[in-house]
Every structure is written in C-alpha cells, then in structure tokens.
C-alpha cells in the first residue's frame, strides 16, 4: 500500500485531526508528568537538558493547548461546518495539508523548546519559524472553511458556525500580533507594553481560540443528543457578540499587580466580572435546551463528555471573575491556585468538550460504533476524577503558598509545605495520562482497526 501524503478520503481531515489530538494528548500529558516529577524530586532527572523543568513545562502547555485540545476542536470544527452547511469540505487535500502543518508545528515547537530555543512569553514560547507555520495553517483552514461556506446548500448559519468562524479569525490575528511576528528575533515588543501584549495574547488563546470552538461543539452536540431545537436564538446572539467584545479586553488581569496603567486594570477587572454575562447567556441557553433531558446526554459517551465540559465551564468562569478581584489575587496570584484554574479551563472545559466532540462525531464519520464504549467510559471517569483531584490538590497548595507569603514566609520556606500536594498531583496525573493512553488506543482502533472492515464485530 502506498502512503499518500495528502490522501483524499471522505472526512479525511476530521479523522486526521482526531488522531493527532489523541496522540498529542498522550505526549502532552506525559510532558506534564515529567514536569511534575521534578517538582517532587528535582534530582531524579537532573542534568538531562531536554526535559529540564523549565523546558518541559512550555512543551507541556503548548502540546496540550495546540496539539491535544486544539487539534480536537479544529477537527470537530471542520465537521460541524460542512455538516451544518450541507456541502462537502471545499478541499480535503488542503484540509490534510493543514493537518500536517499543524502537527509539524507542534512537533518542531516541542523539539526546539527541548533544545533550548524559546521566546519565553507564556503560550508564545515557540520561535518564529513555527509561528509562521501556525499562522499559515490557520489561514489555510480559514480559507478552506470559508470556501465551504460560500458553496453551502443551507442558507441559515447555525450558532456553531458563527463561533467557528469568529474563533478562527480571532485566533489568527491574536496569534499574529501576540507573537509580534514582525520581530522575528525576540517575538516581542519592549517594556511594560510587552507584558500587556503578551497577556492580551495569552488570554486570547484560551478565551478566543479554545473557548469559542468548544462552545461551538456544545451548541452542536446538545440539541442533537436531546432531540430538541436550541432554546433561544436571542440568547445565542447575546452570548456570541458579548463574548467577543468582553473577553478580548481583559488580558491585563494576568498581570494585575504589575505597574501597568491603572485605567487598564479597571477595564480588566470590570470586564472580568462582566464575563458572567456571556457565560451565563451560553450556559442558560444550553442547559434550558437540555431541560428534562439530561438523561439523554448521559446515554451517549459523547454527550456525557460535553455535559461534563459545560459544568467545568461554569466552575472555571465563576472562579475567573473571583480571582480577578485585587483582594482575592493578593492571595491567589503567583501560586498553584492559578494552575488549578488553568487545568480546569483547558482540560476540564475545553479538553473534555473536545473529547466529547470526538466521540460524538467518530461513529458518524466511520459509519460504525466506537471500537470500545467501555474504554471511552473508562477514559471519561479517569479524566473526570483526575481533573477534580487536580483542582482540589492544586487549589489547596495555592492557598497554603499564598497565605504563607502574605504572612511574610519566604518562598523557600513554603516549599516543604507544598511537597505533599506536589506528590498527590503527580499521583493523580497517572489517572489523566492513563486516560490519554486509553483514548489514543480507542480512537486509533476505531479509525484503523480491522473490526468492521471484514464485516465481523
């Protein structure tokens, strides 16, 4: 059998993104695990340059954000757009090309980071050539989907489609400006404004890349699983436009205590609290759609993941405004509290919804059931329990650090105090890494396993 680089097949792009997502979930969580080991036993892996904590950490964050969650969401986004618009993907070949570009970006990004090439700004660590690759891939995806939309049979655009297009447009521009690609050597501008730009970007990556795409999937899956129309068009509109207007403004809450202009801090804090508006518009709309039908959501594994994802979204977005208040940040900034929030947002909300989308869509594009419902179910529980464990342990560790510092304890003195929580985090990490491995096996076998092809089952 000849290996075809850009093989054209029905749903080929979506399938390839799903498989990439599963692979990066294994690699990305393993990176995180290696990082966590070093916060427990710093001598264990000492002097192995390519896994040293501060290199493996950005490898972890970028691999899970762009590789795992990103690929999963983008794969679903392709499927949503051409299914909802009732027209085939404009070019499966171009789609495959973007899959390769995306994967190469994450791969080279990880490799260069591990060799000590980095631009160090959070989630913008990848060096310039990789930025260009990411931007080119995003532009091609947008072009491919936009051409699909222009050839559509369905005149009305469903909410999910809005979110996909807005998400892609915002991601492209945020990535372009955020990485300051006109300054290839540093990928940054100068001084305090660079901090502001970098967090405009970092916040945009979670808020305008991951969030809209994940919300798009929730909007797609829930009405189908519940077999009811969406609760409200007005709420959809409100949620959509308000998230674009508010989420974008508030990146400065990440460096709230740094010497940035005061008026910017005011915008960041008020905007963060105002985020309750788009979040409740979306969640009220989704949950009223499934009113009385939560059992339907739990009858399919895809629906189950998506439902859990909406719950994590609520928690993340209740915590978010809270921790943007100066009186709260006094305790929570700079410590593991924020790491708990980050995992809840990126894994609990967007990662879990990406998994939900994958499991919901897979049977529909392969034409047969999942390789194993049981394994998917296992993964669901591993991720859910792991996530709840992470949240608990890291929040407690963060509070201990934060209160200790506020009382005048030095950072060094607090290290032994959080040791036990770092051990627990490592242990709980095993659950999530195992979940990732089960997921990869299951998704691979569903796509390429011999079962079904021979007609046996």
């Amino acid at each position, binding site marked *: 059998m000849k290996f075809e680089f850009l093989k054209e097949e029905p749903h080929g792009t979506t399938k390839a993104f799903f498989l990439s997502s599963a692979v990066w979930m294994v690699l990305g969580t393993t990176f995180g695990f290696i990082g966590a080991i070093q916060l427990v036993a710093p001598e264990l892996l000492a002097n*192995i*340059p390519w896994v040293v904590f501060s290199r493996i950490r950005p490898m972890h964050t970028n691999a899970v954000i762009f590789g795992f969650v990103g690929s999963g969401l983008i794969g679903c986004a392709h499927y949503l757009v051409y299914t909802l618009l009732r027209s085939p993907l404009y070019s499966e070949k171009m789609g495959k090309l973007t899959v390769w570009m995306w994967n190469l970006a994450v791969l080279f990004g990880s490799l260069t980071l591990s060799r000590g090439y980095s631009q160090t700004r959070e989630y913008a660590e990848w060096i310039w050539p990789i930025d260009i690759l990411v931007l080119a891939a995003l532009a091609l995806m947008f072009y491919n989907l936009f051409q699909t939309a222009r050839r559509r049979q369905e005149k009305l655009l469903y909410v999910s489609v809005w979110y996909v297009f807005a998400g892609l447009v915002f991601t492209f521009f945020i990535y372009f400006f955020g990485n300051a690609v006109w300054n290839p050597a540093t990928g940054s501008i*100068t001084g305090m404004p660079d901090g502001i730009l970098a967090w405009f970007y970092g916040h945009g990556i979670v808020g305008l890349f991951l969030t809209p795409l994940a919300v798009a999937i929730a909007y797609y899956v829930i009405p189908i699983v519940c077999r009811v129309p969406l609760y409200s068009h007005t709420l959809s*509109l409100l949620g959509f436009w308000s998230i674009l207007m508010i989420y974008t403004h508030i990146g400065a809450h990440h460096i709230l205590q740094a*010497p940035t202009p005061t008026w910017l801090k005011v915008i960041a804090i008020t905007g963060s609290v105002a985020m309750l508006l788009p979040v409740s518009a979306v969640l009220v709309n989704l949950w009223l759609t499934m009113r009385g039908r939560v059992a339907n959501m739990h009858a399919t594994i895809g629906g189950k993941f998506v439902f859990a994802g909406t719950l994590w979204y609520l928690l993340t977005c209740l915590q978010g405004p809270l921790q943007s208040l100066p009186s709260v940040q006094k305790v929570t900034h700079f410590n593991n509290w924020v790491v708990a929030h980050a995992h809840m947002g990126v894994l609990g909300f967007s990662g879990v919804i990406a998994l939900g989308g994958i499991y919901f869509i897979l049977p529909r594009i392969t034409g047969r059931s999942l390789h194993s419902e049981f394994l998917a179910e296992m993964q669901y529980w591993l991720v859910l329990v792991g996530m709840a464990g992470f949240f608990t342990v890291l929040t407690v560790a963060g509070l201990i650090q934060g209160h200790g510092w506020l009382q005048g304890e030095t950072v*060094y003195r607090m290290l032994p105090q959080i040791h036990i929580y770092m051990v627990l985090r490592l242990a709980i990490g095993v659950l999530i890494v195992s979940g990732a491995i089960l997921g990869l096996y299951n998704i691979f076998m569903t796509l390429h396993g011999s079962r079904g092809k021979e007609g046996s089952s």
Partner: protein
Amino acid sequence: MKMTPSLIVGGSVAIFASVLYIAVLLPWSTTTREPSDIFRWRTPLEERGRQLYVNNNCSTCHSQFIRPIDWGLGAERIAQAGDYIDERPHLLGTQRTGPDLSQAGGEHPDDWHLAHFINPRYVRPESLMPSWEFLGMENIEALIAYVQSLGFKMADYRMERQRYWKEKAIEAYEAGTDANVAWLHERVPKPWRNLPNPYGTTEAGLKRGQKIYQGFCIGCHGPIGDGMGPAAPYLYPPPLNFTTLKGRGVSGGILYYYIMNGITGTAMPYFKRDLESEKIWDVGNYVATHFIGETDAGQPPKGIEASYEPPYGENPYGGEEPRRER
C-alpha cells in the same frame, strides 16, 4: 439579526481592531519610556545571560516584579514602569515556584551563585530549582552576570559592597584560622559578642535546630560541621569549619548575629528573612552543642534578662515552690 459569513468575519475583524486599539495600542502609547531612578543599560555579557534566561524559560518559576504586599527577596523596592523600559521580551512571570528575582543582584557574591547554578541543593538543600551544570561554565558565568545585574543601580551598589568585603574576607582567611576567627568576631558589635543564648539547651530545641540545619546549612557547612559540604569546592573563602571555633571566644550572640545577617563578601547568606528569632537561637545552639563543642545556652543572662528561662526543675527565684491556695 441575520448571521452571514461576511457579517461574522467583518464583525470579528472590527471588534478585534477596536480592542487591539484600546487594550494594547493605548497602553503602549501612554506607558512611560522614561527610565526610573535605578535604571541602567545592561552590558553585553549581561545581555547574553538574559538570553539564556529567556531560552531556558526561567520565568516559569521566577517572577520579576515586586508588589506592595511582598516580603522576602527583593522586597526593598516596589516595581515601577520605568524599571522595564529595556525588557524585550518582558520577564514579569506569573509563577513563583522560586523567589522574585527583580532585585536579586548583589544579594550573594558570585561564588554562591556558581555553586547554586551547578546544583541549587548544594546551597539550599530543599530547593526545587533544576541544576544548570549542563549549560557549561561559560554560560553559567553569563547567567551569573545577568542575575547580578538584576536591580540595576541598586544591584551595582550591593555588588560593590560584596567585592569590597570579599577582598577583606579572603585576606583574613588566608592569614590563618586564628586571625580569621578574630577578624570575624571583631566585626560583631560588642553587645552581641557578650550575649549568651537566652534559651536553655533542651532536647526538643536541639532537634528543631538540627532540622533547620539540614534545611539551610548542611550543603555548605557539611553534615558534621567541618565546612566540607558539597558546595565547598566552589566557594572561597570556604564555609567555616565550626570545630575551629572552640576556645576562640565564640558566643551565642555571635552565632546569632552572623546567622541573621550573613557575612557579606563570603557565601555565608543572611537568614533574617527565612528564620525568625527563636529558630536562629535554636540552630545556633545546635551548631554550638554538636559541632563547636561548647555552648553558653542557658547561662545566667548578661543581656536580655526578661527572656531568660532556666531548664525545668531549676528555680532561680530562691528555690521555694510557689505557694498554693488551699
């Protein structure tokens, strides 16, 4: 509202452009480009060190700005926008697994940093910082130069102080043990020299002292207090061999004074930020009892009578049991 692809794309671009203006361009155009009072430009070597800091993402564990609520390393100066006019990329950081480094320059002499970068646990036994030995000597020197520049003119001032005292400390060390100890003790203000450890020697106190010794001192002064900890080969003057203090007029107050303030110019750090009073007395007494072999702990007080507490069972107030109400 009828949603079409062009409305969505056009609307997104319009919103993006206006937000970019408000949240990035406006702050960019209004932030000061005036240097602050402590600012200075970095040397090429310091720049090279900074690049290593960038490439190895030291910001994943270290922030570089001090808030009004901060204690600890660097907390002598609250960050000002004018300190950051040459930061490219910014290194503000969002995580403090390690301490803030915005004022780290000159807090330690270069030899401390060398031992620390080779293996942080040599000088701070419970550190979580990775070893950077694999970077090679040349890179470590650049990193040290950069770290010593953090704090700009405030760091330069501290560095001058380190260099001045380093010369003296080496001179004293090379003059032999007697001269070195005498020199060290002369520098301690007299009231401190005459001050005995106000706490009595108790088993519990020694246990606490040992715990602190293992968490803070063992890498330099070594498990048996002979100054042969793993950091010793990198430090000059080397860590003090405590056994040499016996019979040379050491007191609880001298130990306390040096543990609290450190010995500027030598690798001996100050612990005033890590340890509060009783902990310093405890570790001092542990060192005195276990390594020096003589202690003044629990002697009748010379300085601070009110805090003197005799061991259980010895009543200094005339031996009479306090009268009990029937």
